[in-house]
């Protein structure tokens, strides 16, 4: 799976949120609300995942006038596989508990 990424609890929370609806595009603020991560913590993780091609991004189509288009995030197929492995490993080592069931 390429370079080893430092898996912090914050990263695991974000991966859990992204895997919840793996094929759906997520907004940044929504991810922040789900994981409880501040913007200063959330975006560096997103940037690292995107750099390693585990996260794909796109700008949403311009919708509401007067509002800028928002940035959307979704795990790539490689990213999903990797994220599931990391989540399993974290659960096995008991270093992380899901914030909600059904992850």
């Amino acid at each position, binding site marked *: 799976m390429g370079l080893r990424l430092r898996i912090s609890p914050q990263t695991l929370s974000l991966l859990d949120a992204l895997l919840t609806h793996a094929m759906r595009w997520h*907004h*940044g*603020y929504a991810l*922040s609300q789900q994981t409880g991560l*501040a*913007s*200063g*913590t*959330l*975006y*560096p993780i*997103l*940037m690292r995942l995107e750099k390693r091609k585990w996260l794909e*991004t796109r700008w949403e189509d311009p919708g509401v006038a007067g*509002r*800028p*288009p*928002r*940035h959307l995030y979704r795990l790539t197929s490689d990213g999903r596989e990797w994220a599931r492995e990391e989540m399993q490993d974290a659960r096995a080592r008991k270093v992380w508990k899901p914030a909600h069931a059904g992850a």
Partner: protein
Amino acid sequence: MPAPSLSLSQRFSAVLARKIVALWPNDTKEWGRAFEAELPEITTPLDSVRWVLGGAILLAKESLRSFMKSLWRPLGVPASDASSSLPKGSGPRPRLPRVLAGIFLLASLAMFCLPEVRASLASSVLFSRMGVREYAHQGKIQKLLAEARTNHDPQLLAFLSLVLYYDADHFQLADKAIRRDPSLTWIDHSEAWWNSRDRDRRHFLSDERIERLQKFDPQNGALYLLTAEVISHPAKAAYFAGPYRSALNETASWELDVAKDPAWLAAMDRVFSAPEFHDYSAKQLALVRQVSERYRLSAADVTDALFAHFWDNGNIKAYCHFLTERGDEAAQNGKWAAAVQNYEKIEKFAEKWAKEEESGPWFAADFGSKVSPKLQAALEASGRSTEAQIAAAHSVRWNEIITARQLKMRQRAPFSWTGPVDAWHASGPNLWLRTEWAGLLINLAVLLILAALPLTIAALFSAGLAPSFSRRILGRFYRVVCWAADAAPTVLLCSFALLLVAYHPYASPLQNGASREDIVAAAMVTGTLPRPVGILVFNLLYMRSRYYFWLGLTAVLSVVVLVLLYRMASKRRIPNQNI
């Protein structure tokens, strides 16, 4: 439904977010916009403030990351090109990361700040066999003079009187030093410096000074030699004023004339009979070391104070001839006791002279080696075989000293009190001495520094601060600028390092307890080889004729500016010309 009105904090957050995005590094600005785009979705004022504060922290992190990344970008390469391959046809660019260029320049500057590096640069650039060396140290000597007038340090005064031997006031300095510390009276002997090229043979010491010296140290025969020099001066002056005659294997006519003067014979007899014979070289060297340590002087600063009294060996040679002829005459007549007495006088004087630390053994061996065989023969003839064996042993020792001297001359820097020895033009096989290699490396390093420093500044300015302008003006020659921007900082650093390494052994000879020869070699190591052409030209033009130097420099710079202006004008007339 009308849009909800924003609170003050939400409006403030929006303004702040726009500022944050404006400051965001270009290579990740997309993420800044992403952060800003979420702000309208945040309805709670407190949450919006938290969101923006998080963005501010993110901006700080990204700015630092971008700055660190930019350090590894070459000069003149914009950030947008940093991560992607250079587009085809974009032209030549420097390759050396700017952080390395900066480190090299800082390291060069740090080495330049070292006193020994500056001393070697000044010595190499300003040293000249044409007598311009004083120019480099005049400022320092004037400062020392001012300090001596304030603190009245007798040793400093004595040192300055030795350095300024060419100045008419140097006797006043010597007198002040001696008044404060009578044990420094010996410096008058060093003041009595004969210039062998001075045909007038002016003797700088008055009778009163000679008498003061002889009272100060009545045991030292060298002080009575001053009296003999004064007495023989008219005869010698008349001889040297005449046509040149080689007296290597003959007795010069003035020697025959002075040998008839009872006053001269009496003075020379005191020279040869005195218990000691030395020129205060050791005291002179000790004085120079003490003053240099106290006032932080370099080898080049003190060289002029190391010249010993260049006593006139001619008088010694003349008296030796006189005694030898008397001994030979006595030997021919079978008067062995008289022969031994005359020969022994020379032998004993040579032994006393050989005790003189610096150059005594060398000169003494010249005289001793000639008289020892005659003394041995006379002793054997008079039945004193034990003493004859001792004389034979002395003869062997004198020859060993002569051989050792010849070898030692090959190991020393090729300098001479009377003028430099040009190693390039010495006849026969000439092995390079350690000092010559050091001098070559020092000269090479200085040349490289003189070339690399302006090249570095010009290349870094062209490639770093004005790359598009430089590319437009210089055209295909911009490639040379890029090469210079890559190579010049490295060459500059290596040159400073080479200079430091090559000069370091000669940097502190005074502190290392080196001998007089080592100190002089250290001062002159940068001049042991012929001056590099550039430095010679610099000395000739700048020192000898500043007008022509600045005229030439102005002309060259004007031509360069005209060429650049012409290219600027030609590029404007053809705006679509591909570079």
